[in-house]
């Protein structure tokens, strides 16, 4: 026993207590080799919004989709006029979450700081390429903040309160924030390869597409309150730069470009990859039709509204409101344009070997009381979904390896057309760009000689249709400031299609299913209250 006491006492006390931590390394190890530092970048790429694995989608916040389940953010908060500083919706996978994005931005800043400190461990080629990628990623995260909140604090180095430096920053202006994003994109574009990258890394095209999008947003009425045409011109020029890379083209088929077989086709500019089973996508289970062959398969979160369905033109290219279009309100789903059939599941559509019927008494009877996940509008969507994946399989094993595409070439064409139309009017290049998109879906070109305003209307509708369910509409309706006002898309009632079959005769009656509520000031998200509480230098957006 004395021996035990002796043994214990003779140990050097601190040595005895040393237990090395498992599963972690130091910054020196992380940045000791290119291979290790690549792991750090792998984590930053992983911070891009994981849109496939969230059931709160921004199309539900906007007028494209009515939420399947009543409790989802879109219906219970955004379209109930309920956005407030204590309850900021953040989009799929916390796309524009304030703290989340600053955590991501910190990762980028730490990378820059550490590779500078350990520069000798890396080759010049690796360093140039990787710094450019991370610069692009930082611009991406800032763009998420910019398009939600406007001007934001610009943090360029990792903050450290242990060395006495400033950690409380005020918001930069809109222009300063845009300039910061543009500078990062330019720096990234200068050093990134222009060829299509099928590994999922950033390219020159991605950097320019991001810059063009940020500029388009900044030129739009929400941010460009003085309607400065030069801002539009800048956005047009940047989108034109992407077109002039001559790397991208429209994929032959509108529908299948989103499926895993066509990952990184020539239209894809920047996308997030998925790898089942642990890193697969859940989109089919979250968004597909609820009941298939009588069984609840999915959560049905893609529910096209009647207003979206009505925006699809006829296959002759005319809108259904045009008396010459041939549209029959009692036979609404015939002779519509191709993208309608590639996007919308309506009463009588086939899905996974079943005929989906949303009519009264149908197998997915329209749920007018919002008591279940079943469609509240009479529609589901099929776009971006892989029909070969059953909903329950998707929910439980995330079997999809389809990319989520952040930027594709069709958007570049439409963004160019929009910016160019606003900057100089509907010139030939505007027609060329929008008609290229339309012709892929077998639509005739737009009538020559449109006014700038008519062209604007045409481009906005084209953009809504072409990019539906791609996480774009919510940003567009805000930057265009069409959420509220006389025809505000988020103040008008939402309709669904009630279909009654009597003696084999179908009758179609649009019924009001929901009244949207939205306020003009909500076009900008409020800075979360807890951030204002912590950083007194932050100033809230007006109206909150």
């Amino acid at each position: 026993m004395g021996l035990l006491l002796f043994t214990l006492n003779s140990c050097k006390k601190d040595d005895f207590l040393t237990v090395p931590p498992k599963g972690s390394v130091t910054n020196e190890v992380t940045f000791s080799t290119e291979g290790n530092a690549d792991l750090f970048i792998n984590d930053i790429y992983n911070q891009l919004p994981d849109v496939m694995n969230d059931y709160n989608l921004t199309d539900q916040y906007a007028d494209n989709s009515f939420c399947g389940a009543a409790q989802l953010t879109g219906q219970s908060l955004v379209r109930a006029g309920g956005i407030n500083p204590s309850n900021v919706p953040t989009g799929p996978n916390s796309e524009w979450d304030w703290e989340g994005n600053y955590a991501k931005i910190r990762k980028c800043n730490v990378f820059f700081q550490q590779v500078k400190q350990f520069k000798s461990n890396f080759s010049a080629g690796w360093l140039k390429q990787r710094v450019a990628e991370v610069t692009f990623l930082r611009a991406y995260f800032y763009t998420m903040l910019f398009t939600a909140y406007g001007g934001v604090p610009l943090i360029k180095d990792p903050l450290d309160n242990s060395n006495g430096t400033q950690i409380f920053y005020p918001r930069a202006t809109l222009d300063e924030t845009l300039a910061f994003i543009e500078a990062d994109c330019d720096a990234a574009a200068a050093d990134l390869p222009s060829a299509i990258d099928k590994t999922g890394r950033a390219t020159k095209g991605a950097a320019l597409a991001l810059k063009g999008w940020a500029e388009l947003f900044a030129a739009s009425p929400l941010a460009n309150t003085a309607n400065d045409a030069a801002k539009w011109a800048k956005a047009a020029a940047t989108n034109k730069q992407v077109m002039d890379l001559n790397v991208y083209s429209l994929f032959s088929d509108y529908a299948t470009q989103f499926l895993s077989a066509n990952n990184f086709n020539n239209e894809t500019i920047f996308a997030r990859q998925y790898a089942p089973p642990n890193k697969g996508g859940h989109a089919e289970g979250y968004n597909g039709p609820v009941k298939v062959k009588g069984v609840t398969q999915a959560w049905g979160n893609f529910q096209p509204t009647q207003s979206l369905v009505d925006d699809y033109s006829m296959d002759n290219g005319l809108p259904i409101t045009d008396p010459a279009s041939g549209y029959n309100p009692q036979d609404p789903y015939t002779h519509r344009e191709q993208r309608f059939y590639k996007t919308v599941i309506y009463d009588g559509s086939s899905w996974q070997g079943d005929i989906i019927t949303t009519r009264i008494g149908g197998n997915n009877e329209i749920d007018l009381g919002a008591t279940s996940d079943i469609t509240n509008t009479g529609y589901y969507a099929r776009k971006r979904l892989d029909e070969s994946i059953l909903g329950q399989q998707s929910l439980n094993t995330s079997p999809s390896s389809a990319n989520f595409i952040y930027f594709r070439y069709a958007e570049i064409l439409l963004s160019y057309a929009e910016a160019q139309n606003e900057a100089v009017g509907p010139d030939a290049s505007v027609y060329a760009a929008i008609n290229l998109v339309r012709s892929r879906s077998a639509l005739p070109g737009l009538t020559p000689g449109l006014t700038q305003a008519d062209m604007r209307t045409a481009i906005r509708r084209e953009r809504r249709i072409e990019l539906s369910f791609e996480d774009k509409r919510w940003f567009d309706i805000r930057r265009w400031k069409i959420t509220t006002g006389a025809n505000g898309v988020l103040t008008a009632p939402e309709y669904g299609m009630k279909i009654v079959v009597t003696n084999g005769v179908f009758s179609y009656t649009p019924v009001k299913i929901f009244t949207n509520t939205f306020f003009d000031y909500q076009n900008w998200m409020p800075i979360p209250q807890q951030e204002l509480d912590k950083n007194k230098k932050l100033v809230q957006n007006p109206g909150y």
Partner: protein
Amino acid sequence: MKKTLLKKVLLTKKPRFYLGIPILLSISSFSFANTLPKGSNNIPNVTLNATTNATVTVTGKVTDHTNGQTLPGVSVKVKGSDIGTVTNIDGTFSIQVPDNGVLVFSYVGYDSAEAPVKGKANLNISLQVSARNLNEVIVVGYGTQKKTSVTAAVSTIKAADIAMKPVVNLSNSLVGRASGLIITQSSGEPGFDGSNIQIRGTGSIGGTQPLLVVDGVPRDFTRLDPNSIANISVLKDAAAVAPYGVAGANGVILVTTKQGKTGAPVLSYNGYVGFQNPTKVPTFVTGYQYALMRNEANINDGIPTPAYDAVQLQKFQDQSDPDVYADAHPLQDIIKPNRLITYHNLSLTGGSDNFKYFTALAYTHQDGMWDPTYLDKYNATLNLTANATKTTTVNFSVNSWIEDQHFPAFGAGSILNQAQRQAPYVPTLYSNGLNSGYIGQSTYGEIYYSGYQFNENPATQSQFSIDQKLPVKGLSLKGVVSFDIGPDPLFNTQNSVQRISSLPIPFYIVDPTTTPYTYNKGLQGSQSPSFEERYYQTHSFTYQGILSYQRSFGKSDIGFTGVVEARRVKSEQFTAKRIDYGLNIDELDFGGPAPADATNSGSSSGQKQIGYVYRATYAYAKKYLFEASGRYDGSYLFAPGKRFGFFPSFGAGWLLSEEKFIKDNFTWIDNLKIRGSYGQSGAYPRSGGNILTYQYLSPYNLGGGAVLNGAATQGISEAQQGNPNITWERAKKSNIGFETTLWKGLLSVEADYFYEKRSNMLIGTSSVLPGEYGIGQGLVNAGIMTNHGIDLSIRSSHSFSNDLRLDVTGTFTYAKNKLLQTFENSATYDNPNRRQTGRPLGTQFGYQALGYFSTSDFVDPASTNPTLKPGIPKPSFGPVHPGDLQYADLNNDGKIDANDQTVIGRTQTPEIIYGLEPHLIFKNFDLDLLIQGTANSDIQLSNYFVFPFLGSGSASELAFGNTWTPTNTNALYPRITGTPSANNTQTSSWFMRNDAYIRLRSFELGYTFSNKILHNAIKSLRVYAAGQNVFTWTPNIKEIIDPENAGANQNYYQQRVLSIGVNASF
């Protein structure tokens, strides 16, 4: 000596024996045998001259006069001789006595009794619990002390009080039985029903878990066999916890297991069979009520069509179409009544002066609310003590158990969530027996078709100790080596093998468009089975060297204990999973063939601690007591150079009842002591109850990276910004107490006032670090909080006659804390309504509900989006209508937002907890009740059962007819809509309830058969009925919720248990 004896003799009428001779301690029930201070008054050495008389064999039984329970190990001696024996485990003895001899019965904690033989062959004796408890010994840190000389605040629980209650997890047996314990049991699920134990309330932000110690070693006691426990001590003040250094600030619970008793082998059987039912099951609306409420919601939502038309409503009423318009009550459908709980224990004990043994085997079975949930627990105990030499005692003990837990693959919380959510129009089972689904989930299927989870949790607590008396008088050295396999309570690591077989859950959806109806099959969960095995292993090694010295010099009693304790814990975990099973064979080998079908993961960790403990005691004339103790403690948790801390304490006591002026003038005072202590204790960095390791490091952690080039990658990320200066939390504890016994035990009081200041409190910076910072930081020693309160226990014992005795014990605990300094941003700190600093931790903030908006509050009340009249503060949670909740605009800025929040509730942990234990003996009957209650706590209700249709859910029965309508403006709940509006689901005073309750926590009614009936077939036999959570009264809550369940009512329901049992020995 003679004078003393006479003074204390108390003559009772029948049976005739003498009370009051201070007894010789029977020290065999404690493991630290030789360090024990012996009773200072020995039996008077009376010379007996009548040894020439004939001898007779006297047999008999010794029982506790209070509760009639038999007392094993009672010393039975012939007065004035060396002849003696000890009672067996059933309390019986047999001894050869001169027929005119006198037997002296003595036992720890009881007054001694003498009984003249007078030729009788049978002598049954009942011993009174010593009114003065002069010789009661209590277990304290690293040793034992006489209760009279203790200057610390320690409460004790007698094992007999909890041994036979129908409770599996021992943490659930303690509530209300000792002052200073604040205990909440939030779940009744077999295997996961452990209570949250706080000693003297909340002392820190980081965590409040006390240190658990079994037989001197940090260990989990909650799964020990209740019949293998000898006693439980709760260490409360600094003087008591300082020997535990950094681990002691939240208090310590010491459990001591049973040792062998000298005597012939005694085989005992104890067992019970009981039935469990939930204390409260919320009830939901009928199908018809649901339909009516849905229609009302549609009207409120401005949807012109009713959800259910007249024909459908009729079907709900007449139940003519129960598969489509059902009247289902899913909770009642799945919860089975009268679920079995049973326990069987066989023990053997005995021994000689040099070798004693105790061994026991126990089996426990507990069924859950549904068939797939049940647990089996097997406990084995072996405890051997031998005097290897005249100066050497060796003890070896093993407490081991296996707890096999069986569950559906779906967790109980998910099942109850789905059962509460399932709308009543969907039957749980269709008329043809097929199970239904609701929103893709099947309540019944999740229980019966989801597969299983099987947790096998083995543990072995073993220790070997040698106690050597040294050549210096009073000095001994003890070494303890303990090796445990099992959960480590401090670091919350597991020791478990878990098998989880998840199956696709088939369910059926009725298709009413066909005639007859068809039932389409769907699958919930994965489309093919998966199987997972998890291995958790925790090994702990503890080494202790204990030097102790006890000696009296004249009027001075001196004691010293020094301890070196080193401890290391290793834990590992490994998990392997296979998916895509073609055939459902639940073995890893048979999973899908693709590499992606197999995943596995694992990690490991370790802990090390070392501590140097001392305790020095000095007593003068047994009246003036002084004590100093403390620990120099080191832990791996802190940066090198900052790993050690010193935690001293001091205590003093004054035994006034030993003073002459009391003895002479206040003879009704049997015992009176005042005592006080002050000292320091430490606490580990914790968050959410878990100890946070390596807070001083800024590590980069490995994790998942993006998918690049088609494959998942690894990633590395900055985990946190460490705080290299982190050190212990430090608690400064003060305690003042007094103990008294009056009128021979008619009244005993023990009362303590405590005050604690926790400084250096480890808190996170997230509430003040700007969101732009981008990374979390290690905890910082920046918080200060105080905690104060009262522990009180009062006891009254009275024998009305020899057949009727009543004991009543009351315990009362009050603890209230106050945050003095924490990280708080200006938004709350600058707002007096919202400031957390200066308020109790856990104070509930929210909106102050004023009532409902009325139609007169709106310009256009009938509009779909009505506008509030000018001057009425506008809520910022979306549009409001008449019948929605109106909140107070406390800052008068015309809008309701976060700045209007204020205190709407006290903490959810009660500030007051009390127990009342009447204990009645009438002839052969004994009755034990525990009435227990709490006060000063609030609970925020949420979820389906207060928010109709939340998450497409159902509505509680209470909500029907109790929601706001233009004609029912005084309703319990706001107007209903298809989904509850964000305005109404804000955390508000409207759903805050006073959570006070009174419970008949347990009862035990026993009957002991007399020896006349039993003859010699059985040595002793008692039968009893018992119950747990028998009746609960929540005066301030209309909703059906157990007051200990969380506000969402989705924890597995607490159980009411009624049981019958037997205690027998052979």
